[in-house]
């Protein structure tokens, strides 16, 4: 706790700073794209949130492994804390993608492999969060959700490739995703990096905050239990 006491304010400031700089720079100080006009600027929200959605699940995978192997309680709590953040990032990615899609492709949604994979990821997150909520005993919940995360990761990866296979007959190549074909121009690239850094710091800050809260609530529960039995 002492380490995060010192780290958390730093990370929070970094995240707010990077987000402000990245987003304001990106939205207001970059020129309009010659093809897409100003709608491309939603990339500064869309790409970082998509990145963090995946990274959050990866972090949960590692934390679940650590819990199962070393039974370190903080890792189970951290995985639990990261899940709602991950699901929100996924939602942001899905919604900003839909908002971007309407002017770009004329449709809010298409069953493109990338979009479909994100929808599947969203459902995996939901299952994980629901399982945590459904079980009373915290250690049992930690065990079961960890196993679910591990098996789920295998099938999430499988789904990603299955969806590529499923869709390849219709859309050859990623014609619908912007960042595949043309390299992103320098002008757009730097604010994007700053924005990505901002989202990453935001994720770290939020996970730290939520994990600390979980630890404190466990301590409180333990104190109350001790009081009652004393």
């Amino acid at each position, binding site marked *: 706790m002492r380490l995060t006491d010192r780290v958390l304010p730093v990370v929070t400031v970094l995240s707010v700073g990077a987000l402000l700089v990245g987003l304001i720079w990106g939205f207001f100080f970059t020129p309009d794209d010659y093809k897409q006009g100003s709608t491309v600027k939603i990339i500064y929200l869309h790409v970082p949130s998509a990145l963090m959605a995946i990274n959050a699940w990866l972090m949960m995978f590692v934390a679940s492994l650590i819990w199962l192997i070393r039974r370190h309680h903080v890792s189970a709590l951290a995985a639990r804390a990261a899940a709602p953040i991950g699901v929100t990032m996924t939602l942001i990615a899905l919604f900003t993608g839909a908002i971007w899609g309407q002017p770009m492709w004329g449709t809010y949604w298409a069953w493109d492999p990338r979009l479909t994979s994100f929808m599947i990821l969203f*459902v995996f997150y939901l299952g994980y969060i629901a399982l945590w909520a*459904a079980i009373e005993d915290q250690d049992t919940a930690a065990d*079961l959700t960890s*196993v679910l995360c591990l*098996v789920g990761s295998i099938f999430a990866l499988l789904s990603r490739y299955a969806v590529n*296979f499923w869709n390849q007959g219709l859309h050859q190549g990623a014609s619908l995703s912007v960042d595949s074909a043309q390299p992103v121009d320098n002008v757009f690239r730097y604010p994007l990096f700053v924005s990505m850094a901002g989202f990453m710091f935001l994720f770290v800050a939020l996970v730290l905050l939520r994990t600390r809260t979980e630890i404190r609530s466990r301590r409180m529960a333990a104190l109350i239990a001790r009081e009652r039995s004393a």
Partner: protein
Amino acid sequence: MIALLKRDLKLALRSGGGFGLSLAFFLIVVMFVPFGVGPNSATLALIAPGILWVGALLASLLSLDRVFQLDFEDGTLDLMATSPLPLEGVVAIKALTHWLTTGLPLSLAAPVLGALLSLPNDAFLWMFVSLLIGTPALSFLGAFGAAITVGLKRGGLLLSLLVLPLYIPSLIFGAQSVTLIMEGLDNATAFALSAAISLLSFAIVPFAAAYAIKVNIR
């Protein structure tokens, strides 16, 4: 293990075992589709493999409750956990029972119900085979979900939420192995991957589910 298989099969096939129910559910779901989508044969033929797969999937889901729940409630699962038979073996046998009483009958019924959906005659065999090879994955993954939720009293809906995302690759490859044949393309990849997923779940699930059961009966 054979004794356990025989016991579970007997229990499932008895009158309270819910054996015919998944088949009936499958029939009803398949019947619903024309009501919802319209009776146009061409449309139905296009979506028939997918609908049959989705129906099989949902029907599989319904009978997952009984894989572990009944034994958990009366303490038999505790006995099985402490017996010389490894819990992984118990899980495998129970998943196999589920497949024999759900997946296998569904695969046999699928071509018949495919006729209701204007499935082309030459796709009948592939429909049967694709379900035959793909439904073991459904049973084993379902057993995993059942093992995780065995301690919960009303875990049915949560079970569906946990298991259905795991079913997505099986659904994709299974339905594709029939659709590709209908389009005149080669379905070897889809079929092989569908079989691979069944084998993968057969390999992984006993260990994961045994761990989950041990956690739940602590």
